[in-house]
């Protein structure tokens, strides 16, 4: 058997003179080993020349905030700063939304009133409205909602600034329609003395940044996520979908090789893991396939890797190269607890995989619970 790790160490010049002499002699005598050494020497160069591919363009756009979903911004804007009022009873073709005060990022195709001006948006636009003096601030409740005309009229003279990130925004003005294109900012109704409203930030925050910046938002999102998860769980229960998660009990196939049947499997298992690194904690052969939990006897950086390697080697030895190993592990300060089940390719199905995963997870959790 060829020790490929020794060849790798040779490549780094890590062998002692004795080891080096021994492996050099073997390479000279063994064509198969010589071929493996040639492959090992070529490996770093071939790895380094693997081509890189560009990421999907939409990911870069998202990072730059060029297509930030509207929901992000709704989260980021203090509610008191933006008063969006539904206005009902206008003529059917008229907009049903009035932005009365504050700023709002709007993405999509929508018509609304920004102050007293009709605004048709097709793209990604930031609208900022500073209502006129005398407008009841803070809430739309004081405005007579029975008449939409009153609301829009009350906003006559509002200062409006529109920044277009993408697409266009069309504003109705006394001189006709003004079309604002991507990259442009236009203001309406600003008096000379009035300060220009704050412009859009250069770099809109991502959702993760918003979460970090505002613990209240984070807490609310977490709460909502928990509610959604609970509802989904209840729905799954109602629909009987949890059976899918647990899977159906798998019966033992008749044509299994002996070393995968319960008795043969346990014998092979104990032979393979008789080394002092792992202890067999439990073997469950109630149904096909057997599920095993192992504990590493020593803690260390490599314990998890060794466990995975050992399981894969065992899977190859017992079920052949084309086998499926459901592997799960947990690492507590280097102490590894692992669970696995091995399914040969000719007995593999998605259903059996789901069931094996469910059983492996359950058994592993049982070990962890008993430790705690």
């Amino acid at each position: 058997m060829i020790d490929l790790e020794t060849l790798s160490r040779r490549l780094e010049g890590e062998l002692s003179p004795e080891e080096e002499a021994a492996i050099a002699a073997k390479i000279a005598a063994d064509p198969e080993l010589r071929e493996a050494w040639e492959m090992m020497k070529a490996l770093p160069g071939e790895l380094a020349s693997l081509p890189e591919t560009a990421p999907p363009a939409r990911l870069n756009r998202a990072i730059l905030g060029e297509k930030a979903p509207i929901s992000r911004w709704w989260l980021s804007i203090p509610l008191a700063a933006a008063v969006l009022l539904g206005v009902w009873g206008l003529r059917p073709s008229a907009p049903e939304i009035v932005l009365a005060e504050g700023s709002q990022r709007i993405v999509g195709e929508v018509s609304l009133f920004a102050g007293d001006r009709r605004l048709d948006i097709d793209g990604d636009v930031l609208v900022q409205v500073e209502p006129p003096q005398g407008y009841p601030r803070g809430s739309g409740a004081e405005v007579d909602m029975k008449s939409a005309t009153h609301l829009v009229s009350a906003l006559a003279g509002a200062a409006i600034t529109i920044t277009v990130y993408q697409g266009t925004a069309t504003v109705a003005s006394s001189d006709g329609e003004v079309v604002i294109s991507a990259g442009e900012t236009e203001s309406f109704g600003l008096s000379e003395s009035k300060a220009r409203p704050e412009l859009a930030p250069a770099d809109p925050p991502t959702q993760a940044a918003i979460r970090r910046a505002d613990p209240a938002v984070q807490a609310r999102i977490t709460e909502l996520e928990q509610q959604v998860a609970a509802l989904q769980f209840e729905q799954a229960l109602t629909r009987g979908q949890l059976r899918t998660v647990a899977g159906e009990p798998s019966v033992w196939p008749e044509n299994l090789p002996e070393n995968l049947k319960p008795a043969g499997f346990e014998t092979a298992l104990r032979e393979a893991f008789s080394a002092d690194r792992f202890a067999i904690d439990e073997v469950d052969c109630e149904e096909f396939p057997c599920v095993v939990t192992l504990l590493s006897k020593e803690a260390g950086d490599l314990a998890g890797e060794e466990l995975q390697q050992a399981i894969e080697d065992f899977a190859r030895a017992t079920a052949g190269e084309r086998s499926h190993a459901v592997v799960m592990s947990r690492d507590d300060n280097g102490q590894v607890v692992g669970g696995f089940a091995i399914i040969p390719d000719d007995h593999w199905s998605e259903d059996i995989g789901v069931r094996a995963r469910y059983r492996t997870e359950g058994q592993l959790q049982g070990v962890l619970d008993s430790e705690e």
Partner: protein
Amino acid sequence: MHMLAFPDRVVLRAIQGETSARSELLSRHGALVWGICRRLSPDPEDDYQTIWEKVFRALSGFDPHGPAQLSTWIATIAHRHLVDQHRRRKVRGEVVEVRDLPADQEGPERGIDAVRDRKRLERALSVLPEDQRRVVVLHHLDGVPLDSIAATESVAVGTVKSRLHRGRARLLEQLRGR
């Protein structure tokens, strides 16, 4: 001849938050980060975005006059993020996906030709255990020195070397189809 080194203006502009400069950095180094993510992360799209978020947040701490190249600095941030994610997954006891052990015969190529078959090499890389794959990818594909990898992973250099040797041995095992 004495040469004066000037800091990269794009980096300076990106530090100031200029979107066009950040876009330029994404163009220059996006493929590097994407390569790391798609080979090392179970959720490459999410990690790609988070890594860039971290890069832009930390960019003011990058010393353009310092010894580290920007690409190495970015690769280190990506590496650190992926190690954190890996540890979280392990601590939570997450199910490692069902692994299809590769077939014994993948193609007609043998010997050195198998190493030169890029698709086959990528496939062999993809089934390495995560710890070994990180070392192989970062060291061989992205040129990160082993001692830097050890520092980011908070393990001894010997551990990283051991992972490298095991990883390369397993790669060859896959490529030889034995």
